Every structure is written in C-alpha cells, then in structure tokens.
C-alpha cells in the first residue's frame, strides 16, 4: 500500500470541502474493492475521504411507493431490513448474497454502484428496478448512470447520498456465480413494474446491461414460457478463463427464466 492521507468527515459539506481542489482523492465507502486494490499497489491516491461517519448517508426508509436506501448502508443491513423485505424482498435477497459476511458488514450500496464492477450484484438491482441515484448535486436515472467498465455518470467530487427504488409488483434476482470469486458470471434481475418489465444483467458484459428482447417478451406475458426461443447475442459479452461469451449468453437466458419463475412464485404467495 502506498502512503495516503486519511480523512473522516462528519458531514456531507465537510466531505465536499475535503474533496474540493484535490485531483487525486478517492472516496472510501466500505472499501471492499478499494482496500484490496490499495494493498496490492494497483491503485494510488494522495487522499482517502472515508464517508463512514456521515450519519445522513445511512438508513432505510419507505416513502410511499418508493424505498430509499442511504448510500452508506451496508449490505448486511439491507439484507436484514424488515422494510426492504416488505417492499422489495428480491433486493434483500440480492444484498444477502453479496460476497461473504465480512463484505456484507463493511460494503455499502453507494460504494458498490460507484465502483460499477461489471460483475457486482447491486448494479443489476438498481438498473433492473429502474432506481434513481441521488447525489450531492442531482438525481440520475439508473439507465443513465452505468456507462461502462468501472465507469459511471458521476462527476469528480460528486457524492452518492441515496438510492431511490420504486416498489415493483414482482421481482427476483438469480445469480450464477463464477466458481473462484463467486461474483456473478451471469446475474439477472427481473422486475415487473407498473409501467412494464425490466430485465438487468450483470457479470456477462463490460457493464450491467438491459436484456431488451426479454423485457418485450415478458411485458406481453410475465411467465418463464415467454422466454422460449429468446436468445442473447454473445457479441458484446465477456470472455475470460472462467466462461466464454457464448456460455455467458446461454446462462443469462437460463437465469432470466429462473428469475421470472422465482418472481412469479413470490408474487403468488
């Protein structure tokens, strides 16, 4: 690990002031990806601003038909939250399946989506539910947020404060894990919303993506059978030592079908 200066502001304004003017600063929002990268000397920053002491960034609340999760809420809290379980049980299950207990107790939703790892779970939930990312400066629709490999619409100095999730009629997340890391090799979040069906895929492409053909088919009939004959072109998907693009494409369809099945069952209960 290279040397850096560590800061722990108590408020958002204080954090903003610490970031201002520094071009080599990184926000620390749990550090479950950042710390290992620092330890391996794969990343180097002059300053780390730890958002962990800013209470305004934490917590879960329901606002009408919207679930609001503070950016610094750890995965374990989302997984265990009765509020989340009532509103979007699929999101609680997703959070409960991230990494291991250590990661779930330290890692946060804001940190996860700001990092935009192409195989992370939260981006699938955020995009699949059509959530809104609230930042220190504006609100960004999920569809506009994830731009590519570890790339988001966040501007320098912009801090995620919360994520606002519309409550779906039914939703489910199914993940086929890479055997070593257990990150998603193909993770599919399916949500039936008032305005239609959204299907988000993580782990398969360079960034979380929407499976539009599946969405159109499911909009007509929200049932696994609707995905019969639907395929995903492997052209833009990832190939690595764990799986080829072709295999990933096949798995995405299988996981989509299973997610619809799970969502239908959850809804029926």
């Amino acid at each position: 690990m290279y040397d850096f200066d560590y800061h722990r502001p108590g408020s958002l304004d204080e954090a903003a002031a610490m970031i201002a003017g520094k071009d080599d600063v990184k926000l620390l929002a749990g550090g479950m990806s950042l710390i290992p990268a620092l330890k391996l000397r794969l990343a180097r920053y002059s300053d780390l601003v730890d958002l962990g002491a800013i209470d305004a960034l934490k917590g879960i609340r329901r606002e009408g038909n919207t679930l609001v999760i503070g950016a610094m809420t750890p995965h374990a809290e989302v997984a265990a939250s009765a509020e989340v379980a009532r509103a979007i049980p699929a999101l609680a299950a997703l959070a409960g399946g991230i990494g291991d207990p250590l990661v779930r107790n330290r890692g946060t939703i804001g940190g996860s989506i700001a990092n935009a790892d192409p195989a992370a779970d939260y981006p699938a939930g955020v995009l699949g539910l059509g959530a809104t990312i609230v930042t220190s400066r504006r609100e960004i629709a999920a569809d506009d947020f994830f731009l590519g490999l570890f790339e988001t619409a966040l501007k320098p100095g912009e801090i995620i404060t919360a994520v606002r999730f519309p409550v779906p009629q039914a939703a489910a997340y199914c993940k086929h894990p890479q055997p070593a890391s257990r990150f998603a090799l193909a993770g599919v979040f399916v949500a039936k919303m008032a305005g239609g069906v959204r299907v988000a895929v993580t782990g398969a492409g360079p960034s979380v993506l929407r499976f539009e053909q599946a969405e159109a088919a499911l909009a007509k009939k929200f049932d696994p059978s609707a995905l019969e004959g639907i395929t995903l072109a492997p052209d833009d998907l990832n190939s690595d030592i764990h799986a080829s693009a072709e295999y990933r494409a096949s798995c995405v369809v299988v996981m989509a079908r299973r997610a619809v099945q799970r969502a239908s069952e959850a809804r029926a209960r």
Partner: protein
Amino acid sequence: MSHAARSTRIGEPVRRREDHRLITGAGRFSDDVTLPGQAYAVMLRSPHAHARIRAIDSRNALALPGVIAVLTGADLRSDGLKPIPYNPFTLHPADIRMSNSDGSPPFVAPCYSMAVDRARYVGEIVAVVIAQTTPIAKDAAEAVDVDYEVLPAVTRTVAAAQPDAPRLWDDASSNVCLDADVGAKDATAAAFARAAHVVKIETWIQRVTGVPMEPRAAVGEYDAATQRYTLHAGSGGAVRLKTDLAKILGVPAKNVRVLMDDVGGNFGTRGMIYPEFALVPWAARRAGRPVKWTCERHESFLSDFQGRDLAVTAELALDAQGTFLALRGSNIGNSGGHPGSFTPLQKGVEIMSSLYRMPAAHFRARSVVSNTAPTRPYRSSGRPEVMYVMERLIDLAASEFGFDRVELRRRNLLKQGELPYTNPFGMIYDSGDYHDAMEKALKLGDWAGFPARRTEARRRGRRRGIGIANYVDTATGAPRERAEITVHPDGRVDLVIGTISNGQGHETSFAQLVNEWLGVPIDNVRLITGDTDIVKVGGGTHSGRSMRMGSVVIWNSAREIIAKGTRIAARLLESDPSTLRFENGRFRVEGADRSASLFEVAAAAAQLGDLPEDLRGPLAAFSDETFNIASFPYGCHVCEVEIDPELGTLEIARYSAVDDVGRAVNPMIIHGQVHGGIAQGVGQALMEQCYYDPGTGQLLTASFMDYSMPRADNFPFFSTEITEVPCTTHPLGMRPAGEGGTTPALGVFINAVVDALADYGVRHVEMPATPERIWRAIRDARAAPPAGRAR
C-alpha cells in the same frame, strides 16, 4: 465413523492435543518469528515468462531512505552461492529407475536461487531488496530498473515437447530433459496385436497448486563470531532443509541451523527447499542483521512449487471377455522453468496398471521444461494422475464394448491369493484384500440403489451419475528415519524424530504410540522435531512416511528403553531381570508386590553410581533405520454427482471411501486426512487450475478471485470407512493414510460426471469439469450425428 476414545492407546480416536493451540491462534508459525533488529526482504520477480536479463540498475532504489541493499544474481554468483541441490529422481530404492532410452544422461541444468542471466517464468526472483520495513522494500523494488530482452515463451506441456518450441536452455537440444522407456515394448505390442478390444484416451491432468493456509515465510540470521547461519522457516522437514541450505551456502552442515515450530500445510508444496530460504540467510550475512521475508498470497500463487501437469495418451487392450491384456502409452510431465523433479513422472508411471492384473505394459515417459513455475511432488505425487487414466480407460472400455463397469473391475482386480504381485513395471504389491475394499465401497455408496436415485433426479430435471475407482498408492520417500526417546525422572518423555507435522497431528498420534508401549500419558510426551541442533537425522514428511517409518523407530526405541529399564529396575527392586515384567508404565516383579515406575527407574539411572556403563546417565534410546521397501496403501471410492444440464453446474450428492491403512493408530485423524484428501483431489477434478496464458505465459490465476479453491459447501458429508488388512512388509502392519483420499478422487469424480452425461452420448470430460465444459459436452454431443456417438 469412530466411537469416542476409550483410552489414548493405538487404535483410539484421541482428540488432537495440538488443536486447541492451533485454533485459538496460539500456534507459532514462521511469520510469528521476529528477531531484534531484523530487516525486511522483498523479492523482485520477473514480470516476463521468458526474458534475458541485460542489466540491473539499482541506483534509484539504493538512494531511497531506509534501503539497505539490493542483491542480484551477479552478487549471488560473486559470493559463491551454489545451485539448489536437486534430487531429480526419488530417494527410494524401491521406485523404478528411469534413464534416457538413447543412453544419454537426463538434462539437468544448475538452478540458482535467483535468475542469473535469464528469467524462465513469471515470478522467478530477479533481485532481493532489503530495507528497514517491507513498504520501503516494496518502494525500492519498484525503483530497480531491470533491462529485459523478452523472449518467446512456451507453457503448455505438449507444446513444450515439440522440437520447434521456444527453447529454455540454449545448451539443451530440446525442452525434453528426460525421455525414458519403461515396461516391455515387444510383449506389449504382441498383446495389442491379438486384442479383441482396444480403448484409448488422450488427456491432460492439469496444473494445480497446493495453497497451504500458511504462506511461506523465512527469517535468516548470521552469527559472524561462529560463522553460523540460522534459518527459521516452516517446511516438510528440518534436516533435509538444513543439508540443502548448507550446500547452497557452500558451508559445512554444522554451520547451519534450521528452526521451525508449527507448519500450516505442506501437500508436497512445502516439501523441498525454496530459493528464498537460501536468499534470506545470505542476505542476513550481507546486511549484518537478521532478515525476514513473508510471502504474500499472490506471490504464493506465482512462486510456490506447483503440482501435476501430465499429458497422457494411453491405450488398454482387452480380450473378448474383458480380461486386460496390456497397457501402453506416453506420459509427458511438465517440470516448469527448471528441470528439477522427475519424481511425479517416475512415481506415476511405475503404477500405471494400478491394482489390476496386467500381463504387459510399456510407456514412454518424458519430462519437459516450460516457462511456468517449477513443479514438485504434490499430494500423492504422480499417482492420482495415473489412477485417473486407468479408471477412465476402464469406464471407456465398459461403455464402448458393452461391459458392466463393476464386473470389468472384478474380473481384472488382483485377488488376495495372487499377492505378492509384481506389476509390469516391476513394483511388488505386498498384501491387501482389494476385492473386499471394492465390495465394501459399493455397499457404502449404495451402488445397487443408484438407479432409483437417477430416476428421481431426472424427474427434477437433473442428470445423476455414479462412478467408482480403485487405487493403489506407492509410498516410498526418503528411506532413512531416526527416533530418540529420553525418559526424564520428573515424569516427562521427550521424543526426537526427523519428521514434522504440517497439520497431520503427530503430537497426538506419536504420543499414542508412546502411551501404548511405555504407558506414559500422552500429555507427558513432548515431541521435538523442528530444531536441527537436536534433530540430526530424518527425512521429513512426504510420501506417507511419517507414521510408516516413525512408528518403527519409535517402537524400536521404546523396546530398548524397556530392556534397559528392566536391568535398572532389577537393581532397584533387587530381583533378577527375568522375573520382571513391564506393563502400564511399571516394572513389576512377577509374583511379588514390588514394582517401580518408568520414571523411578529413570531417576535411578541418573543416581545409581554402580550401574554398568551402558545403563548410566539419562534413560534414553534411539533407533536409526533405513526402509528400502515400498508400501502400497489401497482402497476404493464411489462418487455420485447431480448435474443441472441447463447450466452445466453440478453438485456432489454422495461420496463414499474405503481406505486400507493396515493398522489405524488414530482413526479420527485418518478420517480427517481422507476428508481433506478427497477435497484436494475432487477440487482438482472439479475446479482448480493454474492457468497460464499460452501466448504471454502470464499466470491468470494468481489470486483467490481467479484460482478456484473448493470450499466446504462444494462437498456433501463424506462417508468414509477404514479397513485394516495388516501390511506384511511393515513390522506393525501399518500402511500410510495421508494420500489415499486424493489418489482415486480425480478418476472417481470424472467417472461419475461422464456417467451422468452418458444418455447424451458424452464420452469424456476433461479436468477441471467446469460448468462450461459440461455444458459444451452436452451441447456438442447433442449436435453430433448419432453414428458419431460412442455408446
């Protein structure tokens, strides 16, 4: 499984004395050693798979505050350090001899502890940086400017053997270091000529790594006054490390001391000396202060000795009834960047035919170098590879020629009355009841009830398969071992022995032997294994040798203690030695109410002034033996898997193992060894692989994010059974138990996977059987025209 321990004698599942220390963090591992004034070393490693080192400029590194030294291959040569002493072949006379079939000597190049002119794999050490702290040393390592001329690289085994492959040594005619013929060529060819059936397999037992829980670490010291080096480093054995280290440093063995306490895993990975173990004490001498180095996990993946990596083509000839006639083929072992160890190749090919009656066999055995980390024996060196090949051949023969898999094995498996049996490579299997082990495994795995389970799984959309594999394990290893027992009057017994526990529980199982033979409570037995100033002789822990050889030298020592003690007790009790009996720790006068404890006798030995010369002083005895006979543990495993055909994922539904150990000292420890062994073997077959990019030679699996280690939830509860058919070549009837879990696991697992996919017409699945491999096998078989399906 086992009953609760009724005593602490031989045969009882005594709880491990060492576990409380180990699981409460009170173990003392190499990295726990910290010496006053120590500096820290960081190894600068080659980022290239193959590169000539044109120049190394350390000026910028040396200019950083806190940097003590940057040592390079040139320094190493000018200081006169010697190459790492290899034992390319096994140290045991029972293993077969191999030499080049053209009569030339095998190619073995000197391997120094650092690259001198050329780096031959990613991770090879190019310089050692010593600094006040590890972070400073890391900064300095980044500041060292190495001028590399990158050369073409080759990593894959078969490719490396090609005449036009990039060459690792300019003075070798090819990358093939050894090209041997074993078995009988003409007899084998004749048998193939008259065979009714011939089945063939071409496969690669892929490269894996041991991943010990404790990464390597070393602390080196040099005392200028006595000119003595001390190395603190965990290893498979202290004595061998000492002698190898002395050879590299070019000093007499007495000028080197090796110390180690707890060792967190070996599996062969930690069996032989590492370059760092020589560099650190040398650096300590250069720096004039102790030097410590701790391996980080990614560094372990790059630089730990790796295992397996054998490319095999094999054919089995059968007559019309299914009787095996002959076996032939070719094995190519990949020894990595330096031609250091032909052992796995040798230990595998000598038992290619396993426990089956095989009238003739012939193999070509080659060893190649490639631009990959060096390989060494890895848990059950060479045997899991060849057992996998043999058991796959049998299943393939059964499916291609219409035999029942189990019947085919029954027909060819050696019967007890045929033993001792000399296999076609010259190995002599001493004793055992192979059929009994197989029948017990079939029962334990409920082979008969499998069809119902398959049908039930099918209803859930799953494909269920079952596999069986017999195995034999040749245990040889360094043949010499020594034990010394000293009885202290205060009630303690010291046992000094030259083999060390790397997690196998010697503090308990060896103490059980002492308890059995000397009646001493196990908690009063102190095991001394990790200090070469005390332990002078011993071969270390490998090839199932610790208990196999340890038991005999401990037994001999204990008997001599009793013999000596009887004569001393006779003086003490004023009786004739012939009237004394030793039982439960006391010498008793028969027919009289007089006795003396072992410890009273030990006190007398120290105090009585008029004892004969040979009885005076501490009550102690030693035994130093050389074991020139191999041992052949055997058994049979049955595995059942369930496959999700849409994804190619699988679940191991059942795993049953029957392993014969001749005589079990601590069945609980043996069951534990079998469990770990199964996980290690199935881990390879299911998911593990050191994946080198074929183009660049970069290791793409250098962290747990990419190297698939099996976890507890990858396995069911194992059903393991021990059988005890006494070994006729061991004075106490024992067979080794540490490797049997792994040896059949590769074959039995792949057999189960292929059986699950049989209905699709899948003939074979290569290791590791990843979800994508299984998914493709199903897809390709579905796409193949029915005529192309071998069923």
